[in-house]
């Protein structure tokens, strides 16, 4: 069902955490709330679920106002970062808890629990205890339990951040497969930009209790509306200048840019810069950092007022101290209006 967040403001102990948030999540869509810790993304999640009450605004689900619906009747189910499995119940009892609350009879909810365990690829675990299983398995149980509650909106609160890197990838795939199969409207809260970019249909970027930008992963990466959003995805060097007649002009360079006239900052991310060794150039390599798949090359101009970074896949023969020529990939440059 479509979820609409209208003008939501939240204050906790007299501090404003969310400031007039507006957001629409389409039926079956998978969106991410991305932002640094403390930006209010988890608070927004809990407000949607009704655990936190908003000071202003409304939440609509399928066009119906949810504000007076208590949390346990909303069917907006959260999977928390710390899983919150009930320690005094077996795995099957954990998963069937929502069904038991609905008054489903015992043999039926046990059957459903076993079905769901199969879905999260943990067959045969039903009678184990919560403290006998690993973190990744707990995550799967928490997910199965959330699905048992038949969620209209699935809310995932940093669900992968406590898992090992290797496990994370498997879990992301599992979540995505299940989401596509069941077509549940899903909101993922994360601080990991890669997670947001790879998993979501759209990303809402939050900062200081406000949504800065809400767009598709590609658009938000390529056309961030301000430096906060831009920096969060990939840092680089900013060069100030202005655009006139579709051309960006700065102290250092000028390049074609398909934007309206005005003052702009041009963000040069490492991926937008190509370098090659040359005899005579005003750019010099000051550092070469091995990063596993590639090398990060840091270069300065002779005046020392322009510091750039580039990525080299091949170690080639560029070393610290070498002079290099640079080439900008105009499609990867980002222009942010000032």
């Amino acid at each position, binding site marked *: 069902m479509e979820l609409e967040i209208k003008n939501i403001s939240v204050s906790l102990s007299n501090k404003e955490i969310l400031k007039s948030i507006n957001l629409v999540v389409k039926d079956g869509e998978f969106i991410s709330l991305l932002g640094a810790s403390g930006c209010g993304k988890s608070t927004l999640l*809990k407000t949607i*679920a*009704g*655990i936190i009450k908003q000071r202003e605004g409304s939440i609509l689900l399928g066009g119906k106002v949810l504000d007076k619906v*208590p*949390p*346990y*009747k*909303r*069917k*907006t*189910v*959260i999977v*928390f970062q*710390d899983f*919150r499995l*009930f*320690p*005094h*119940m*077996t795995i099957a009892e954990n998963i069937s*808890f*929502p069904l*038991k*609350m*609905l008054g489903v009879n015992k043999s039926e909810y046990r059957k459903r629990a076993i079905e769901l365990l199969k879905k999260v690829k943990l067959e045969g675990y039903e009678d184990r*205890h919560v403290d006998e299983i690993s973190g990744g398995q707990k995550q799967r149980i928490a997910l199965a*339990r*959330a699905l*048992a*509650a038949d969620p209209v909106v699935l*809310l995932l609160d940093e669900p992968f951040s406590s898992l090992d890197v290797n496990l994370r990838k498997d879990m992301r795939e599992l979540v995505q497969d299940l989401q596509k199969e069941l077509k549940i409207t899903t909101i993922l809260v994360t601080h990991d930009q890669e997670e947001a970019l790879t998993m979501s249909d759209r990303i809402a970027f939050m900062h200081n209790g406000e949504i800065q930008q809400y767009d598709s992963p590609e658009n938000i990466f390529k056309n961030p509306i301000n430096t906060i959003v831009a920096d969060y995805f990939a840092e680089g060097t900013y060069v100030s200048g202005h655009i006139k007649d579709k051309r960006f002009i700065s102290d250092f360079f000028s390049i074609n840019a398909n934007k309206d006239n005005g003052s702009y900052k041009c963000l040069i991310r490492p991926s937008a810069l190509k370098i090659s060794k040359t005899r005579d150039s005003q750019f010099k390599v000051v550092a070469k950092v091995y990063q596993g798949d590639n090398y990060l090359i840091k270069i300065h101009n002779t005046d020392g007022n322009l510091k750039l970074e580039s990525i080299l896949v091949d170690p080639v023969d560029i070393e610290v101290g070498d002079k290099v020529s640079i080439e900008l990939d105009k499609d990867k440059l980002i222009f942010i209006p000032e």
Partner: protein
Amino acid sequence: MKDISSNKPLKIFIYISLFVILAPMVIITLWAFTNQWPWPNLLPTNYSLRGIKEIFAPYGKVFPILISSITLSLTVALLSAIIAIMTARAIVFYDFSGKELLDFISMAPNLVPSTVFAMGIHVVLIRMSLANTPLGVIIVHLIYTLPYTINIMRNLTESIGVDMEHQAYVLGASPWKSFLYVSFPLLLPGIIASITMAYILSFSQYFVTLLIGGGKVMTFSMIMVPFIAKGDRTLGSAYALVFVLSTLLVFAIINTLLKKFQKREEKSNWN
């Protein structure tokens, strides 16, 4: 641990402590079954069941008093645990005006010796016609046990936190069901501790019961103490033995009954 020989004095200290704790219990157990134990014998010369028989005599008053005394203390213990759960929830989970004051009030009876408090409240209870009634005794015992039970429940409520209940809400459990199915089982160890603590405090009370009950509300302590005061060792010891054993029995029953809720415990016992 690492260096066992250096622990020897400490071990001896523990053994002495254990001996000092257990020896008197053995001695009163002997006394409870003693008919004659003349000076200067170290053991009784002749045993009998006189003391125990008197307590459990078919038409005697003692056994019914034991039962009603256990009932009274269990009532105090249950009420104390329930009020402690409620108060702990309010203090830990909610913000409300007067919270600091309530926090203080709930611990205040610890700061007033029970003798002082009992004499002060006695007059009030007389005015309310609650003196010399079981209800009056229950109220006063309750006030006296609450600081202990609230302390236990508060620490546990804090450590469990509200997160598990929130998880239950979003999974579709109403607040009451969330408490019943999620928090209550997790609070159970504390509830058992509270009930046993309040029970023993209430069951042991002599002075407070004497004053507030005015001799009309008879508890087991009330009939046991005169024998101790007289120095009647056989009967005093028989009463003391019944006191301790009945208490341990009540604790065992409370434990078994409440642990039935707690499947986790049962299952881990199987493993």
